[in-house]
């Protein structure tokens, strides 16, 4: 620590005393008062870089009283004895008053710049010596109130809030003096010396016919200490009516605005004077404005909130929080972000479109598979037309012949009633027979929605027998159908499974085509083990050559001259759609066995024994 001090000393002390530019600022209030911070910012930006800046705070009104003031004067005296300031800036009336009282003992030769001192305060003092200079301010209470009434022409009540400290009372007195000019325009209500809670409650109950004016307060009715800005912030948050204040520092707390000199401007003004004095300009030679002119200030957010007509805001007004728009301030970032958003949105949209497209494509594929399966059924039916026509024409032929016979018998006049009755019975039976064939055919060929229902594989196979047997007979093949001993439950689409069977049997019939009669046999059986439901189609044909076996279920693979190569491919698709698998075992010359296996349908299972 001692080392650091020594270093500082070594660095600073060689400089000639006359060239040391040291500005001491003495503030009335404590160091964190927003007004002080803004003032110092204005001051710093104006002072030349080489200027040393010190700051002291009276901490008024938190600390007050003769002993404190004396001790403070003593402290400053001791503190700055070795490093006296070249220029002294006093901020605020209390600081100026303090300085004037203790100047002789403290800094008698140092020129003084006063700032943030009201003209009214100056006029209450004896004339200042020539080396105490500054631009007085006017806290523009009436200007602020006037502004409020102009921006809220509908207002009928003016509510004024002040506190209980000496400064608060001074402001109240000033207000009471100045308020009379508004009496005709609005009714004025003073809220003086109330507890903060009560103030907030009152403000929250105001209607749209009121505006609030407050200089804030340092102390409320129950002695709680505030900075005026804090008080203003609390009030603005609670108030149900627009609020105005005379101080620059209130902007941002939630007040709408006011007519006020800005503390930053005061700081800049003080800095300019200090610069001139430091440059050796005689205080008397300074040409200073008579006063810091107030300007209208407004918080744009509040302007919007209270619906104030923007055209009522004067052109030279300082409008805060409007600032550059987000776009103006961050144009590049905004463009980047927008680009990223756009890209992202585009990507998302593209993905969504893709997803939708894929879903549609899936649907289309499903639909196509369904159509294809149906087309395959129709094609198979084409192969079966001979057998089917035979099956239907057989009963139709019998019916027609029987009808002709009946006609002949009736024409002959012979009484052969019994024979006629037998004929009618036969006609009836054959008619039902034909209709059953058609129904089975319709069930097989109809374009039905794919079902998922439990059914008995045994039954499904038996149903196909009347379709398959005639075809087998037509081709001179012995077709044997062996259902399982008990019902074999399976879940899915009965017709599709029948289509699989049809395909396999027609293939088998093709396989034994042209062989000696003993080998022209095809066997269909339904089997069941603990885990599987099995459909077997066995022919005693030539068999499949080993190199063809792996390609058997591929689309468009066919060894037949007229084959499309879709039958087995579709059969496999249908089998797998039912969670099963299909495979072929074949030995050359020994025929082929197609085995279709499905896992046993649990739950939907075996019919309950009654």
């Amino acid at each position, binding site marked *: 620590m001692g080392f650091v001090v020594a270093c500082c000393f070594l660095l600073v002390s060689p400089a000639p005393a006359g060239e040391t530019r040291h500005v001491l600022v003495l503030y009335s209030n404590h160091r964190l008062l927003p007004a002080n911070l803004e003032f110092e910012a204005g001051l710093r930006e104006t002072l030349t870089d080489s200027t040393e800046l010190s700051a002291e705070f009276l901490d008024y009104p938190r600390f007050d009283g003769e002993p404190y003031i004396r001790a403070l004067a003593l402290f400053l005296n001791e503190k700055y004895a070795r490093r006296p300031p070249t220029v002294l800036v006093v901020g605020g009336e209390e600081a100026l008053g303090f300085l004037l009282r203790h100047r002789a003992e403290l800094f008698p030769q140092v020129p003084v710049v006063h700032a943030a001192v009201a003209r009214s305060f100056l006029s209450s003092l004896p004339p200042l010596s020539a080396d105490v200079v500054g631009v007085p301010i006017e806290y523009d209470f009436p200007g602020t109130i006037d502004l409020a009434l102009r921006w809220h022409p509908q207002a009928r009540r003016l509510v004024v809030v002040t506190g209980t400290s000496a400064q608060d009372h001074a402001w109240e007195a000033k207000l009471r003096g100045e308020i009379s000019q508004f009496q005709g325009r609005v009714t004025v209500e003073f809220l003086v010396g109330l507890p903060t809670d009560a103030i907030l409650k009152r403000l929250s109950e105001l209607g749209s016919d009121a505006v609030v004016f407050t200089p804030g307060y340092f102390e409320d009715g129950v002695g709680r200490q505030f900075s005026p800005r804090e008080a203003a912030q609390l009030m603005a948050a609670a108030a149900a009516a627009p609020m105005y204040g005379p101080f620059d520092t209130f902007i941002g707390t939630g007040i709408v605005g006011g007519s006020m000199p800005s503390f930053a401007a005061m700081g800049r003004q003080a800095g300019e004077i200090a610069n001139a004095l430091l440059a050796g300009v005689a205080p008397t030679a300074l040409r200073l404005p008579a006063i810091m002119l107030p300007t209208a200030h407004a918080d744009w957010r509040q302007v919007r909130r209270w619906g104030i007509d923007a055209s009522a805001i004067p052109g030279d007004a300082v409008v805060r929080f409007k600032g550059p728009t987000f776009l103006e301030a961050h144009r590049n970032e905004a463009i980047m972000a927008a680009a990223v958003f756009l890209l992202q949105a585009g990507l998302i949209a593209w993905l969504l479109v893709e997803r939708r497209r894929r879903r549609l494509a899936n649907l289309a594929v499903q639909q196509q598979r369904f159509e294809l399966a149906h087309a395959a059924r129709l094609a198979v039916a084409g192969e079966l*037309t*001979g*057998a089917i*026509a*035979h*099956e239907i*024409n*057989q*009963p*139709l*032929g*019998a*019916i*027609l*012949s*029987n009808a*002709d*016979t009946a*006609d*002949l*018998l009736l024409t*002959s006049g012979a009484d052969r009633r019994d*024979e006629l009755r037998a*004929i009618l019975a*036969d006609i009836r*039976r*054959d008619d039902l*027979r034909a209709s059953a064939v058609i129904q089975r055919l319709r069930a097989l060929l109809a374009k039905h929605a794919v079902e998922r229902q439990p059914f008995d594989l045994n039954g499904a196979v038996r149903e196909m027998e009347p379709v398959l047997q005639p075809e087998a*007979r*037509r081709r*001179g093949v012995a077709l044997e159908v062996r259902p399982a001993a008990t019902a074999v439950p399976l879940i899915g689409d009965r017709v599709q499974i029948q289509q699989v069977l049809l395909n396999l049997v027609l293939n088998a019939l093709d396989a034994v085509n042209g062989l000696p009669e003993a080998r022209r046999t095809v066997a269909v059986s339904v089997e069941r083990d603990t885990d599987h439901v099995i459909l077997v189609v066995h022919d005693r044909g030539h068999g499949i050559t080993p190199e063809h076996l792996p390609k058997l279920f591929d689309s468009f693979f066919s060894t037949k001259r007229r084959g499309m190569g879709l039958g087995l491919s579709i059969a496999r698709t249908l089998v797998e759609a039912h969670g099963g698998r299909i495979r072929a075992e074949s030995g050359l010359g020994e025929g082929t066995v197609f085995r279709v296996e499905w896992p046993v349908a649990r739950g939907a299972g075996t019919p309950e024994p009654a």
Partner: protein
Amino acid sequence: MTTLSPLIHVVDDDESLRTALLRLLDAAGFEARGYASTGDFLLQPPPDRPGCVLLDVRMPGPSGLDLQAALRCQSNPLPVVFLTGYADVAAGVRAMKAGAVDFLTKPVEREALFGALQRALDRDAAQRAAHAEAERLRAAFAALTPRERAVFDRIVAGQINKQIADALGIAERTVKLQRAQLMAKLSANSAAELGRLAERLQHLPD
């Protein structure tokens, strides 16, 4: 022989249809007999009487076309009318080429069926008549002596009596005599008629 009434053989595996057909033929005055299969028909050789076969194409075992082929091997085949459940063009062509009278599809109109059967029976009758005529001719021809046959051959070859006599080394008068004898045996009145007879003999079925 011609006094026998025709018999229609109905071969169809479908019992219902077969019954209906037999019933219809019976009602229409035909005499008919039913068979459930080709084999059934072949196992019961039909009596030698006029008739025809009403034949289904598709049947378990040998088909109707197989039966038609088998029938054609017989000396006096029964005409066949096919009655099929499905008008398969290939089968139809095959059947007609093989000499079927008609190729009908079920269900068949009564008139069409009776018409076809009648034509079959007519053909059978004609066949039978032609067959009988040929038999008679063959028998007459068989009754010629070797010398008469030699004379016959030369007459139809266009030789005159003198040439025949020279060729055979017999008297012209003997040729004349034998010529009169063979013309009487063959019931012919002129050389031209003999020529036609020779033509027919050459084309006689076996």
